[in-house]
């Protein structure tokens, strides 16, 4: 029998690729290898599970057995891959077993970035990057009355909004002067802040967490500007760092992520990378829609039709019911200016180039209905 296509990971990227590839090739062997249990869940549902009254167990959509049957794949769970032998086309497992691959796809995701913090409670700060993390966090909420969320980016704001719906005293801490600072201009950031404040969320902006100290009841956060904050639980959501160690040890080129071209191929032929671990055409885009485009292109390539990855403009929905928001940030390095227009119940911010052309937007509240129409006017991110 020929060697299988091997996918490292069983997250959204890995399973979406497997699903798309199976549509094109119903018989060739497929093996997925994962560190965790391999159950399938939609990662975006972690940050609005409380509002939707879902327990962590209910978030799993399919068991690993169901996934293996549907994908006609072997799935090795709780299995660490320790090396890649590109010359022999084999992956190496923790017990030194070797498994041959026909082609290898690295879709092993990213690790939450953790800032250095002082204090005896720093090691107990939680972060959520998969369903197991979320289960642990959720279990700790049972007797928690307050949560401090470090990082007012997309994920931090979504979790804060979700916690606030459960009447949990929630604080959001970020060094930037307004939340979603990399996605929203100031005027939009102010309106977004007001929307979240109305649910009871407290903002500590323009500062960072210096130390976390245990107290009898929970934790005391020491902020860089001298303020103090107490919280029963602490969640850190300040960004992701692509997992590149395995690829790097195998001699695969990396920058911030595992470097891949627009065929999603790494510097070693026959080895591909996608999802949160990959830097494709210089872009790391840890969102669902880019992963869909990657999976479709790579599935075709693996099935014998080399397909170049393209990205249209891809708006991102921020799941903050307290202030519904859709952002479509301009491509990195784009020159232009924001123009904001306040309307009843919302705000529309357009990012315009020198010729007045639309290159990005942020829509709040009532204006989110225009998302699709505006996205159609924006040039493709990867044409």
């Amino acid at each position: 029998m020929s060697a299988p296509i091997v996918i490292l990971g069983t997250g959204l990227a890995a399973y979406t690729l497997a699903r798309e590839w199976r549509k094109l090739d119903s018989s060739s062997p497929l093996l997925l290898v994962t560190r965790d249990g391999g159950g399938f869940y939609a990662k975006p549902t972690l940050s609005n599970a409380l509002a939707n009254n879902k327990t962590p167990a209910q978030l799993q959509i399919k068991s690993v057995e169901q996934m293996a049957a549907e994908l006609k794949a072997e799935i090795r769970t709780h299995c660490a891959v320790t090396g890649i032998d590109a010359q022999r086309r084999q992956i190496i497992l923790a017990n030194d077993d070797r498994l041959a691959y026909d082609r290898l796809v690295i879709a092993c995701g990213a690790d939450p970035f953790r800032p250095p913090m002082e204090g005896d409670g720093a090691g107990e700060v939680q972060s959520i990057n998969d369903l197991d993390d979320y289960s642990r966090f959720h279990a700790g909420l049972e007797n928690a009355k307050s949560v401090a969320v470090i990082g007012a980016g997309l994920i931090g704001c979504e979790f804060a909004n979700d916690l606030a719906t459960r009447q949990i005293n929630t604080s959001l801490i970020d060094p930037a002067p307004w939340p979603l600072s990399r996605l929203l201009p100031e005027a939009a950031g102010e309106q977004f802040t007001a929307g979240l404040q109305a649910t009871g969320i407290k903002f500590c902006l323009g500062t960072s967490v210096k130390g976390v100290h245990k107290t009898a009841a929970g934790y005391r956060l020491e902020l860089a500007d001298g303020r103090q904050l107490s919280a029963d639980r602490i969640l850190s959501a300040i960004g992701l760092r692509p997992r590149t160690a395995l690829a790097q040890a195998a001699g695969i080129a990396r920058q911030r992520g595992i470097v891949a071209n627009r065929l999603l191929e790494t510097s070693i032929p026959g080895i591909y990378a996608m999802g949160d671990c990959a830097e494709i055409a210089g872009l790391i885009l840890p969102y669902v829609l880019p992963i869909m485009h990657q999976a479709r292109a790579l599935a075709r390539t693996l099935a014998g039709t080399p397909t170049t990855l393209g990205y249209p403009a891809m708006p991102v929905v921020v799941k903050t019911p307290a202030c519904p928001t859709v952002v479509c940030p301009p491509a990195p390095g784009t020159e232009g200016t924001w123009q904001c227009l306040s309307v009843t119940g919302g705000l529309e911010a357009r990012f315009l180039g020198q010729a007045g052309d639309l290159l990005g937007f942020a829509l709040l509240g009532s204006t989110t209905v225009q998302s699709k129409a505006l996205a159609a006017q924006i040039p493709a991110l990867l044409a």
Partner: protein
Amino acid sequence: MKTYQCVVCGWIYDEAKGCPEEGLAPGTRWEDIPDDWNCPSCGVGKGDFEMVAV
């Protein structure tokens, strides 16, 4: 009226609410949405949605 959930990203379509952003008026039934329609959140096709119990 029923509710459907995208199996890839968890986006929910509630027939009662429709999805005005997508040009689907409140009350638009799932079967009346064109087959080439895609999930507005992640882009998967209509076939990747599943009915969720209300």
